């Protein structure tokens, strides 16, 4: 079969550790500093090019090398079946290896147990006196006497109009 070369171009950041792999490991080549790579003597047919670069996700590219016109190459991404007019490979996305730390948000502080306790305390501090405000001064005095006698205020005595002994 006539052999032809395939040239292409890859665009990640640091080019020294990027490998371009043909057909699942049959041939491995590296990138030049300007991002170019080439495979020599590829027989005609359909082949698969994958790029291995840490930190980026490249879609494998299906390359059809035509037998009749040497040098003519068609390429298509396998992930989204987009055709490529020239063999320029870009990463589809960055790979996330770590879980992203959730950004700081006020709601998360409020929803946490500490926030809930603080919220409940605030409610009690502001709302409870409002409940007690409606009582007469007499009732308040009686409640205070009871408290001095009993030591523990019962809920019934706190309610307005209730707990007369």
């Amino acid at each position, binding site marked *: 079969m006539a052999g032809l070369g395939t040239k292409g171009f890859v665009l990640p950041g640091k*080019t*020294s*550790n990027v*490998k371009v*792999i043909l*057909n*699942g*490991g*049959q*041939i*491995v*080549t*590296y*990138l*030049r*500093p300007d991002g170019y790579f*080439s495979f*020599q*003597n590829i027989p005609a*047919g*359909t*082949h*698969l090019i*994958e790029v*291995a*670069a*840490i930190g980026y*996700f490249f*879609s*494998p590219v*299906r390359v059809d090398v035509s037998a009749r016109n040497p040098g003519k190459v068609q390429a298509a991404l*396998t*992930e989204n079946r987009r055709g490529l007019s020239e063999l320029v490979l870009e990463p589809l996305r960055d*790979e*996330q*290896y*770590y*879980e*992203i730390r959730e950004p700081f948000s006020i709601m998360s502080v409020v929803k946490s147990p500490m926030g809930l306790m603080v919220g409940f305390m605030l409610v009690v501090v502001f709302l409870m006196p409002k409940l007690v405000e409606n009582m007469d001064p007499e009732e308040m005095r009686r409640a205070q006497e009871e408290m001095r006698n009993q030591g523990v205020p019962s809920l019934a005595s706190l309610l307005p109009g209730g707990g007369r002994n």
Partner: protein
Amino acid sequence: HQQYIGKVKQAVFHTHKTGRKRVVASTEQNIIATLDLRSGEIFWRHVLGPNDVVDGIDIALGKYVITLSSGGSILRAWNLPDGQMVWESSLHGPKHSKSLLLTTNLIIEKDNALIVFSNGRLNAVSCIDGEVLWKKDFEEESLEVQQVIQPPGSDFIYVVGFAASSQFQMYKINAKNGELLKHESTAFSGRSQQTPVSNLLEDSPGLAVIIHSSVTGIFAIKTDAATIFIRVIGEGKLEVVEKTNHETVVSDALSISEGQQAFALVQHAGSNIHLTVKPAHDWDSNLLKESIKMDQQRGFVHKVFINNYIRTDRSHGFRALIVMEDHSLLLLQQGAIVWSREDGLASIIDVTTSELPVEKAGVSVAKVELNLFEWLKGHVLKLKGTLMLATPEDIAAIQYMRLKSSEKSKMTRDHNGFRKLLIALTRAGKLFALHTGDGRIVWSHLLQSLHKSESCRQPIGLNLHQWQVPHHHALDENPSVLVVGRCGPSSDALGVLSLVDSYTGKEFSSLRLVHSVAQVIPLPYTDSTEQRLHLLIDADKHAHLYPKTHEAIDIFQSEFSNVYWYSVDDDNGIIKGYALKTKCSGNVADEFCFDSRELWSIVLPSESEKIITTATRKLNEAVHTQAKLIADQDVMYKYISSNLLFVATVAPKASGEIGSVTPEESWLVVYLIDTVTGRVLHRMTHHGSQGPVQAVLSENWVVYHYFNLRAHRYEMSVIEIYDQSRADNKDVWKLVVGNHNLTSPVSSYSRAEVITKSQSYFFTHSLKAIAVTLTVKGITSKQLLIGTIGDQVLALDKRFLDPRRSVNPTQAEREEGIIPLTDSLPIIPQV
């Protein structure tokens, strides 16, 4: 995270300028790496493809590393500091030949050039951009170029070599354009005085091998008993210079000053090695003679490379980089080992895990109180660290202490079973034990049984099995592993066994077998000392029982009729199942040897199917739930049988590389076979698909990965197999009152009705390996560990590969947690 480079083939030093001193090495694993000479750390390394064997390596212009690989077809230049490839050019030639790479100070039109002889053609390549400046073909058939010499200050080069008819050829070529100026050839009519080499050898029998070395005027012959150095004096006269009785290795010549060359000799003597550097013209004087203590576990020296430096008193000092038998790399300088690298771990054959010792209570407390001074010093250092008063050495000491006492690197078991010892068998015949906490080497042992000797010429390690895992009865004993190897490359070669203690690394038993080893089958029976019984099947299909004790025979006899095994013949496409018959027929009365009879065989049609992959369950896997609850309060019972075999076959035309056939010509057929009865439980065909297939079988499912030619993408498929015969037991009343067969054990003797479900998905990456995670209590869901071709590991939840996924799951299915069906498997890092 550790990186290794493998057994070094060639090394070039780069120590001219001030600054980092490096050595560039190429290894048998097709790796090019730059190491720091001070510490042995890797600056950069590149792993070339599996067929890209490195033929030559050199440094040009002080800043480019030039490599010639793939049989002389690919020439690459790499930037020395960071490993970035600068240019790559491919050289073609008319015929196949040995390749030679030479960097001379050739300047052609202000361009530094390299001379490369590859594939029968001489090329001059520019150093800057890899352009081929000129090419020269030689009319002489099968010319082997040995040397290219450029006389200083001239415009031409001499190319000398041998042609097939043992004629010595010399070509004079114009360096600027490759034009041939002169051609001379002389035939070897014989030297004027032929001193037969056999006279010199006298009483040393055995094979004599000439050691290749580039030292002029001296060559060495190695026999089994000794190494003899012979000098060429005058017209073809040979003179024995020295005869050494030990293993000796010679390095290449190094030119230390104008016209002077030196070379190094390394010899073993007991537990020391002697390094001697001699000038090339004068055998009797020594430029350097050192003796260094060497660990016996490394074996003999295989290669040595030397480099010189100028000491402060203007004399020559030498440093030597040596490659040992266990593939480790050491640097010797000034009588001591400066650093060493265990590069045998680059070629691991088999790995098994071993438990660490149980923690004995009360030890840690006592140890702290013993070293009160150490403890005080440690606290002072930590205090200094927090107060920012620590010097860099103090910080290093604090880090070291923290690492040593951290939970991860303790030498005892932990509660969840994560800390273990990984025992790895490497190609060099050395066993390493690595700690899973921090990856350090706990012990390493060069196996005597896999050592090259007269009785075992080419030892090859095969696999590792767990021999003794003490549980209940024998808790005082240490666990041990069995190492199986063979003494030659063919499968008929005799086998060797070794038993190694996993805690200390001592080889306490080694056997040379009288039969070959075709398969090793660990049996599920153990004797009273918790040694697992193993059956070794040899090439004649006889089974040998190990350990050879009476107790083992008794245990085995009681389970004699339940032992079955199978063999897969890849070349003929036949899978056969065997059972044991009687004791071996034959002359030797050996009660540990058994004959086998063939029970069943499956013959796959070889015109249409060729076996490429098989997979079975891991032996120590436990299935936690027999039943699988599905939606609508329904139950399906898993068909769990430990005798399942998964076989994948492809069309014979499609067994090459991917993309080499059209989709119409290739198909992939997968089988699930029960290995006791030979019953094919399931068979499925994928049209238009091709290998390579990576598969993993666990519980009642099989996941396999292959290449779909029609869509030109990789695919993963899952097959799950369920037991229909127990499916009548869904009624509660029947469970409580009636008779049910749920508790009956799964047995291959009964013909169970099975149904299977399967599904396929697209997958982006190509794989090198696939495995499944284990869970102790059955709580964590299983994940598939996938090793991609970019050397990354992906953990994919098994729920993505559930054959019951559908595009629109019903409410009940959604409750169960079935993920809606998509055509490709997503890789979500957070999940």
